[in-house]
């Protein structure tokens, strides 16, 4: 049945080629993942990483090429064949069922489930199985109530429970905090060292590759551009293989802050219910000056999302004040326009776009109903919208088939570029940003961070909420830590230490 004790297997692809019509998604890619190794697969969005692993998992049938498992040639026609060979995949988006408990998720995903489940027996077997796992997990809690890190661990445990011994991890840390990422990858690394597991990890984080992987293969535009031992390669060499010779946006140097800078955003004794309605968030006093980036760090679920929703006008508040330039701000369209407040929420496709409307329309949301003098217009000019958005698409390098494509058809990085184009055009006095680089690739991340820094240097006050501590350390002038709905710690960037911030994030203070 489900033995986690099955030994690791090695997998090798030879000359994998995958064509969709005239488009070659994957051209002659051969990589070797030896038994018990931790192999990283690097590449930009669209480089062919997911095509390659989908061929290995039987979702796609390659145009040509072979797969060897433990040195023997195998035919993988379906995901079922892949799992019979012990090949499994942990997807970037969770495939656990949120309303079921961990134990229910594990049992129901098994190949053979008895008609009536004897929970006493199953629980006993699960307890024995979990003893052999390096992860400790509560299995009687609904998955929806688990933290992101615990869900990710449960995904991995599920694959092992199903007897998989070769795992593809698709950007496993993109939803985890730095601490959780370290822990999960460390434990997986331990299992490969012990020879229980072979791992192929898709990533764009160099520091993870360096810290955990044995070998690395790099794809660009469907071609293998480099492979080798991680120990022999530095970040620069990997970046060169990954992005070739295209220029990477450099961060503007940080303009010195003015000592008498005006306080643009002021939040006083704000109180609002959180999404469970049981707890509340309390922001006692927060001021953001013109020309500075204030970062808010915290583990997800500590009230950052609710705080942003209050600032964005998506959530009612119980008490307190939000002032922009001294006047109260309730996030109406008129106020946002008068006070030059701009917002880049997380998951921009969901929170900042109308997914089925066109790229041009989405880019024009802030300006479509006013003319060049800021007066309301009675007739919308389609040609003005097109001209305006064509200029912005050009300027912000949004890659889209046409201005009339629905924005949902763009890749994540390009949706974020389109939103940035809309929010950063014109006068910006206050910019509120949340997790702007979540799930984006290397060059998009660099460019988006450069844009935010540019806005700061131009005099905007920036409030940046992020779950990525590296991002906060790179961009912020001051960092606050949000824990359990309140700002519990403040430090200037000069004095910031990852250690202390991490302790406050975890609630030990």
């Amino acid at each position, binding site marked *: 049945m489900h033995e986690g004790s099955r030994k690791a297997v090695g997998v090798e692809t030879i000359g994998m080629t995958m064509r969709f019509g005239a488009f070659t998604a994957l051209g002659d890619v051969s990589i070797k993942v030896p038994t018990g190794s931790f192999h990283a697969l690097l590449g930009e969005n669209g480089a062919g990483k997911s095509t390659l692993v989908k061929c290995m998992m039987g979702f796609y049938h390659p145009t040509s090429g072979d797969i060897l498992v433990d040195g023997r040639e195998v035919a993988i026609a379906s*995901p*079922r064949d892949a799992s019979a060979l012990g090949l499994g995949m942990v997807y970037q*988006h969770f*495939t*656990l*069922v*949120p*309303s*079921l408990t961990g134990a*229910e998720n594990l*049992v*129901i*995903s098994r190949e053979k*489930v*008895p*008609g*009536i*489940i004897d*929970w006493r027996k199953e629980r006993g077997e699960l307890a024995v199985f979990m003893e052999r796992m390096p992860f400790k997990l509560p299995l009687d809690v609904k998955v929806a109530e688990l933290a992101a890190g615990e869900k990710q661990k449960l995904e991995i445990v599920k694959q092992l429970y199903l007897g998989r011994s070769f795992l593809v991890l698709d950007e496993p840390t993109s939803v985890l905090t730095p601490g959780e990422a370290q822990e999960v990858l460390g434990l997986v690394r331990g299992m490969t060292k012990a020879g229980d597991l072979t791992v192929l990890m898709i990533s764009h984080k160099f520091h993870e590759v360096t810290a955990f992987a044995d070998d690395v293969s790099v794809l660009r535009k469907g071609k293998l551009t480099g492979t080798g031992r991680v120990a022999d390669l530095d970040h620069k060499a990997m970046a060169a293989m990954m992005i070739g010779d295209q220029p990477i946006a450099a961060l503007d140097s940080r303009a010195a802050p003015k000592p008498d800078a005006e306080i643009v955003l002021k939040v006083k004794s704000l109180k609002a*219910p959180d*999404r*469970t*309605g049981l707890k509340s968030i309390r922001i006692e006093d927060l001021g953001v000056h013109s020309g500075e980036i204030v970062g808010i760090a915290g583990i997800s679920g500590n009230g950052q999302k609710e705080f942003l929703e209050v600032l964005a006008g998506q*959530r*009612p508040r119980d008490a307190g004040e939000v002032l922009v330039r001294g006047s109260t701000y309730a996030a109406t369209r008129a106020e946002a326009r008068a006070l030059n407040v701009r917002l880049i929420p997380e998951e921009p496709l969901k929170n900042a776009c109308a997914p089925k409307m066109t790229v041009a329309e989405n880019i024009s949301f802030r300006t479509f109903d006013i003319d060049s003098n800021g007066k309301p217009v009675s007739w919308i000019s389609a040609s003005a919208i097109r001209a305006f958005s064509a200029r912005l698409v050009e300027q912000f390098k949004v890659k889209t088939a046409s201005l009339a494509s629905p924005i949902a058809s763009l890749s994540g990085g390009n949706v974020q570029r389109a939103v940035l184009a809309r929010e950063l055009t014109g006068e910006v006095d206050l910019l509120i940003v949340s997790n702007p680089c979540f799930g984006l690739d290397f060059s998009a991340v660099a460019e988006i961070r450069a844009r935010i820094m540019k806005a700061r240097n131009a005099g905007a006050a920036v409030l940046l909420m992020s779950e990525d501590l590296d991002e906060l350390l790179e961009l912020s002038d001051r960092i606050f830590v949000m824990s359990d709905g309140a700002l519990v710690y403040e430090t200037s960037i000069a004095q910031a230490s990852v250690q202390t911030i991490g302790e406050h994030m975890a609630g030990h203070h």
Partner: protein
Amino acid sequence: MDATEIGLWGVPLAILGGAIRVSTPFIFVSLGEAITERSGRINLGLEGTLVFGAMTAYAVAVMTNSPWLGLLAAAAAGLCFGLFHGWICKFPKVNDIAIGIALMLFGSGLAFFFGKPFIKPKAPNLPAIPFGAWSDIPQVQAALDVNVLFLIGAALSLVLWWAFRNTRAGLIVRVVGDSSDAARAMGLNPNTVRLLATGVGGALAGIGGAYLSLYYPGSWTERISSGQGLMAVALVIFARWNPLGCFAAALLFGGAGALGPALQSVGVTQGYYLFYAAPYILTLIIMIATSSPTRSLAGAPGELSITK
């Protein structure tokens, strides 16, 4: 003896009796809908299924002189309606709510069309068990005259509650209702599971209809349901998709429905019509009280089109 002899005690007694009598169709329809909604689909057509089930049961009982054959026929008719709904909804871009409304009108209309000749004849009733035989008071006897379907419904809600946790079928329905992607990743076909769940839901609604025409009120008329099928759908949401909750909520609604007649029987002559509206007002109050603009509905299946 008349109602005045036990005085105001008649009111809670009548409410209890009413709760047991009136709640049975609510129990069946809401349990059926709970199964369907747990699989990620809403079938608003159960109102039509209920009416059609009532007509079918009555007609078959009149013709065969067996209420049990009538009951089976109603379940079979409900199964067909459910499967039809499930079959249409598997096509892309079909909205389950719109199809449900269409089937609600279709079911009622079809029942009126076929039911015309059966308005007059008398059908045999489903049997009841006289749990009140120990008492001499006729009100107690009337209140505790419990139909077998009520007992089956009570048992069924327990069984379903257990089955959602402890059987493969129950877990599969919950998986499909919560995440189509996860279900597909496990090799399940969400459409097939939903088709079956909607079919079973329809069959249960048909049984609820049989109770209406074969026990209480016990005859076939075109106004037999007065929206009970729709209220049962609301009741499922109120019960948070929990079969035991459905049972309790059905009892509560049944009791509220019995309030008007009970007050009338103890001699309240003014304003009792207002109490006839009690179940509807109760629906509104409960829906308002349990909803919130800032909180999402706890326990809602993730694939349900109203919660997406």
